[in-house]
């Protein structure tokens, strides 16, 4: 009798050892959404316009002129554009009309030749946006001595 009970106990123990433990498994699903994002960082706010030898162009393109630069970081699906200059100041001696033309170009993850129109940045990346401003006089009008300034707005949307 004792032998029989012992044998049965050993058999159960052996079965328990031979049977692998059942492991519970599960999946964890992660989801994420990256929305359209645009970051603008003004990296050079010291742009300078200089006057042309004929005194009819005041521009960051002229000799000695310095463009402004902005670093644009985007996840894509955005557009960049430049607005008409605002808060324009001219010296009192300048009483003739000036035509202002802000432009920009893009280099880096995207390439946009110098333009004043809106440009799509459809893919993600980091770009350097170079900003120029030019004031032009026509006919016999010329720029006067003194300080000129204007605010240029670069928009990412």
């Amino acid at each position, binding site marked *: 009798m004792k032998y029989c009970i012992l044998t049965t106990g050993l058999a159960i123990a052996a079965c328990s050892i031979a049977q692998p433990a059942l492991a519970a498994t599960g999946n964890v699903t992660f989801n994420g959404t990256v*929305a*359209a*994002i*645009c*970051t*603008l*960082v*003004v*990296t*050079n*706010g*010291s*742009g*300078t*316009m*200089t*006057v042309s*030898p004929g005194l009819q162009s*005041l521009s*960051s393109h002229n000799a*000695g*002129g310095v463009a*402004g630069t*902005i*670093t644009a970081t985007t996840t894509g699906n*955005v557009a960049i554009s430049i*607005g008409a200059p605002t*808060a324009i100041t001219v010296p009192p001696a300048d009483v003739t009309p000036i035509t202002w033309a802000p432009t920009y170009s893009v280099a880096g993850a995207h390439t946009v030749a110098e333009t004043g129109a809106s440009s799509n940045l459809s893919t993600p990346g980091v770009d350097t946006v170079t*900003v120029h*401003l030019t004031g032009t006089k026509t006919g016999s009008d010329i*720029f006067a*001595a*003194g*300080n*000129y*300034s*204007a*605010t*240029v*707005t*670069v*928009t*990412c*949307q």
Partner: protein
Amino acid sequence: MLRSLAIPFFGLALAATAAHGQSMSPMRGEVTSFTDAFAVRVFPSNPYNKKIRIDIRVYDQNFQPVDARIAPDSFMLGAEASRPVLVVVPFDGNNERKVRICTESVPFPNEQTQIKAQICGKFLGTRRF
């Protein structure tokens, strides 16, 4: 003569430090409202290591100002910080309205930075009765 006409048009921000800029999220959104206005909460952020001044403005599709309630509409934002801004836009009798909500960096006092960075999100509000 030439040098006398050489003037800064973007300003004279300290060359050794990053200038001004910002970002904003979200930049797209659609809102359904059962009232005569719809609300959007945006989060302007300052990626710089110094505080900057932020203005929030609302424009229509032609960049004409929209008379919306913005709280707050102008504030100083700390370095690498973000904060919520609530914008409530009236439908003005329409059943839907598309607006741009823009965050604009404002030059610091006593500096002559004259380049303005503007980040605009496009939002559509739809009115349900």
